[in-house]
C-alpha cells in the first residue's frame, strides 16, 4: 500500500487492519522467497486480504517480486479469478456450466438481473450487490446451482433465490 493510499485511511482501526493485511501479504511473499514464480499465489493472497487488486497493490507486488508491472498486470487480467474492482457487499454467482445451462441457468440469471437491476458481471452503483457468473462450480448434480455469499445453493429455484436476495438486500436498508 502506498503512502497516499494510507493517508486516506483516516480511521485508525482501518489503518491497523490495513497494516496487518500488509504484514500477512509480506509474510506470504517471504515464504516464497520473493520469487517471481510465486506471482499467482501472491495475487491470490492479496485478493483474499483486500477483496480486489487495486493498481497500487499490483505495483507494490511488482516491486517486491522484482517483476515488471506489465507482467503483474498481464497476469492479473488474464485470470478470471482476479478482480481489479471492488466487489459488492453481497455477491451471487450463478453457475453457467453445461449441466446448469441445460437445466435453465440462463433463465435464472436473466431473472436475477431484472430483480437486482445489475447486469451479470457487474456491481450495483451503491456497492451493495454483485451479480457474477461462473464457468462451472462442479456442483452439476445439483443443477442449476448458484453461490450466495459463499454458500452453495443447489437446485436453485428462481423465486426462492430471488426472495433470498431481496431479503438480504432489504433487511439492512
Amino acid at each position, binding site marked *: 500500500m502506498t503512502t497516499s493510499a494510507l493517508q486516506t485511511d483516516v480511521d485508525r482501526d482501518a489503518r491497523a487492519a490495513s497494516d496487518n493485511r500488509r504484514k500477512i501479504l509480506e509474510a506470504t511473499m517471504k515464504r516464497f522467497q520473493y520469487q517471481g514464480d510465486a*506471482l499467482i499465489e501472491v495475487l491470490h493472497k492479496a485478493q483474499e486480504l483486500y477483496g480486489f487488486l487495486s493498481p497500487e497493490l499490483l505495483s507494490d507486488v511488482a516491486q517486491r517480486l522484482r517483476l515488471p508491472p506489465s*507482467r503483474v498486470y498481464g497476469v492479473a487480467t488474464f*485470470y478470471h*479469478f*482476479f478482480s481489479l474492482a471492488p466487489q459488492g457487499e453481497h455477491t451471487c454467482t450463478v453457475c453457467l456450466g453445461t449441466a446448469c445451462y*441445460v437445466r435453465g441457468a440462463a433463465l435464472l440469471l436473466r431473472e436475477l438481473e431484472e430483480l437486482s437491476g445489475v447486469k451479470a458481471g457487474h456491481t450495483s452503483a451503491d456497492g451493495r450487490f454483485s451479480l457474477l457468473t461462473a464457468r*462451472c462450480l*462442479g456442483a452439476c448434480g*445439483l443443477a442449476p446451482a448458484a453461490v450466495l455469499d459463499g454458500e*452453495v445453493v443447489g437446485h436453485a429455484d428462481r423465486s426462492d433465490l430471488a426472495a433470498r436476495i431481496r431479503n438480504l438486500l432489504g433487511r439492512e436498508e
Partner: protein
Amino acid sequence: MDLHELEAIGEREQAQRTRLRILCCAAAGCQASGALELKRRLETVLTAAGKLADIDVTPVGCMGLCGHGPLVRLEPSGEMFERVTPADAEEIVAALEGRPCTVTRCDRQHPFFARQFPIVLRHCGQINPERIEDYIAVGGYRTLYHVIHEMTPTEVIAAITRSGLRGRGGAGYPTGLKWATVAKSPGERKFVVCNADEGDPGAFMDRSILESDPHLVLEGMAIAAYAVGAEQGFIYVRGEYPLAIERLQKAIVQARRFGLLGAQIFESGFNFRIDIRVGAGAFVCGEETALIASIEGRRGQPRPRPPYPAESGLWGMPTLINNVETFANVTAIIEHGPEWFSSIGSNRSKGTKVFALTGKVRNTGLIEVPMGITLREIVEEIGGGTPDGTPVKAVQTGGPSGGCIPASLFDTPVDYESLAAVGSIMGSGGMVVMDEHTNMVDVARFYMEFCKDESCGKCIPCRVGTVQLFNMLTKLRNRQAHARDLDKIEELCDLMRETSLCGLGQSAPNPVLSTLHYFRHEYEELIGAEGDHGS
C-alpha cells in the same frame, strides 16, 4: 515409518471402530444440500440418547448419487438413504437399530449401483477423507512401501505400460509411455504434476476424487515420482474447488507427519514433496504447456509442442503431467497386477472410466464403469432416462472439446476410438444428457461462447475463429443467416481444427460440427423466411 507401523495403525483403526456406524456424505454436492447440518443433528440425537459411544457418525466422501443428496449409509447393514433432512435424524438412528423408518431408501440393486465397477472410486463414500488413518486402514500406502522396497523404477514403469492405462484427462495417451519418456529424459531435476484443473463445464470427477480420497492421488503421485526419478510434485487445482483444496492440504500435512511424503520416505533414500498450486480460473490451463506457464507464475498461454513437457517442462526440466484420475488408478494396478487391469475394459481402452452424469437425467451423479459399456447402458439403465420420461435426444461428452452424440448412436461403446469415430471424444468424463427440449444450435452456441471467452488469445485461428463462429451462430439463432452461412461455418471449423496452436482451438469446433452433422435440420430450420428475404 515402516510396514509394521503402518499395519499397526490400520489394525488399531479397525479395532477402535464401533460396530454400528452412520456414514454421512460430506462432499461438496451433499454439503450444499445440507449434509453438515444433518451430521450435527445425528450427533445431537445420539448424544441425547447416550449412544454416541456405541455409534459413530463418520463424514465420508462422495457416494455417487449427488442429485439425490444428502446421502447416508449405515454399517454393517449397507442400507442407504437419500434426500435425508436433519428432521430425519431420529428415524435414521431407528433404522440402524432395526426399528421402522420412513426415510426413502436407495435401491442398491438398481443399475445405478449394480452396473458400476469401482477402482478409482473404491474408497469413496467408505472412508473419512480428512483422516489418513482411515486410508491406512483400507490398505493405503502399502503399495508405495512395496514399490519403494521391492521394485525398481523400471519394473514400475513396465507394470504401468503392460496394464494398458491411458491418460484419463481426455486425450488417452499411453501412461506407461509417458512415464518412460520422463524417466529417460536427462535433467538435473524432474517434476511430477497432477492436473486437477478440471475446467470442462459439466464435469466434477476430479473434484469428487480429491474431496473423497485425496491420499489415493498422493500415493499414485509418489509412485510415479519414484518411477521417473522426481523429488518435487505439484497439484494444480482449480480455485473453484475450495473443499478439495482444503482436504488436499490436510492430506499432505498428515502424510508428511507420518513420513509418507517428504524426506526419506519409509526410511529409504526416496524423497518426494508435493505442493499445491491453486488455479485462477482459466480453462486453457488444463492444456499442459499452459498449465506449466501458470505454475511458473505467468499467463496461462500454451506453447508449440514439441518439445513435450516429458522432455522439457517446468523450468525446462523433464516433467510428468497426468490427470487426477490417472494417478488414482496407479495403486490398484500395482496391487492387483497389470494383467488384472488389462482384463477390464475393451480392446484398446483398458480399465474403467469415471463419468459425471448430469443434465436431463433422473439419476445425476458420479459413476465408474468399465470401458466398452454402451452409451445406452449409461444413459438409460444407470441414468434411468429423463426425469419426466421425455425421449433422450443426445448426450454430450468431452465438454467444449467434445461433441453431441444422437440417441440413434447410443449403442456406441464408450472407449477412446469409438467415441472419436462418432465425432466426439472421451474427454475427462463429463456426460450431459439432453432431451427434446434442448435446442442443439443453442448448445453449439453455448460452447462457442465458452471457447470465445476462454481462448487465451495467443494464436489467431482460435482467438478470431471462436468469435466469428459465435457471431455466425448468433446470427443463425436470430434467423438472419443464409444457407451459405452453414458452408462458411463448416469451412471456418476446418480451418480452426487444422491451424490452431493447442487443443482448445483445435477442438473448439467439435460441438458445432457434431451438431451440424447429426442435427442439421435444426440449423436449416433457422434459415427462415427472413434470411432468404435478406438475400
